[in-house]
């Protein structure tokens, strides 16, 4: 596709349930990133995948969070036993050239609400 696609765009879930968020990066982009933005906060790094290298998971807030990237393309972020503090907009981004000079391309995000 022309841009980074995320689904669903909105998700309301009950506390304690598991959720899966999906990201389709731009075709050919070798790097994929997950960030989240809580209300009134900046974007918080979660995890990033670069080619076939081991992912950088240093931003995952707890072991309830995991992500995978299949075939170097689509990525799924899974949150187990959701808590109210997990409510946020989850943003996926991808990049091809040096993102320090050219930036990432972000999707529109998934707004997760845990009730």
């Amino acid at each position, binding site marked *: 596709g022309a841009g980074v696609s995320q689904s669903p765009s909105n998700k309301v879930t009950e506390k304690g349930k598991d959720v899966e968020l999906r990201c389709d990066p731009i075709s050919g982009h070798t790097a994929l*990133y997950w960030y989240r933005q809580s209300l009134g906060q*900046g*974007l918080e*790094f979660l995890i990033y995948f670069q080619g076939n290298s081991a992912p950088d998971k240093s931003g995952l807030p707890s072991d309830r969070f995991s992500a995978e990237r299949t075939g170097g393309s689509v990525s799924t972020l899974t949150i187990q036993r959701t808590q109210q503090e997990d409510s946020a907009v989850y943003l996926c*981004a991808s990049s091809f050239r040096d993102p*320090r000079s050219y*930036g990432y391309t*972000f999707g529109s995000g998934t707004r997760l609400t845990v009730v």
Partner: protein
Amino acid sequence: DQQVKQNSPSLSVQEGRISILNCDYTNSMFDYFLWYKKYPAEGPTFLISISSIKDKNEDGRFTVFLNKSAKHLSLHIVPSQPGDSAVYFCAASEKGGGNKLTFGTGTQLKVEL
């Protein structure tokens, strides 16, 4: 610990005038700085970046200035247009830290007619 700080949550400017958005940082290992613009219900869009070896980078109406000694950067938009109304995020990349970014909390810019 907020390593990238945008102390002004909002800024209002008249159309045609200059908008100046400010950002401060604490981590001396940051080597690249970026600005993103975000409209409601959309993801952030990359605007401009600057390497720590430079003190200025310009792209059309957008100029970023970096003052390393003060650990301060600013984004100037001249002239400001109503379509520039958005949230602006400052972000930084740490040397040797891979390509992950540390973001500030954003400044809401409103350009008034």
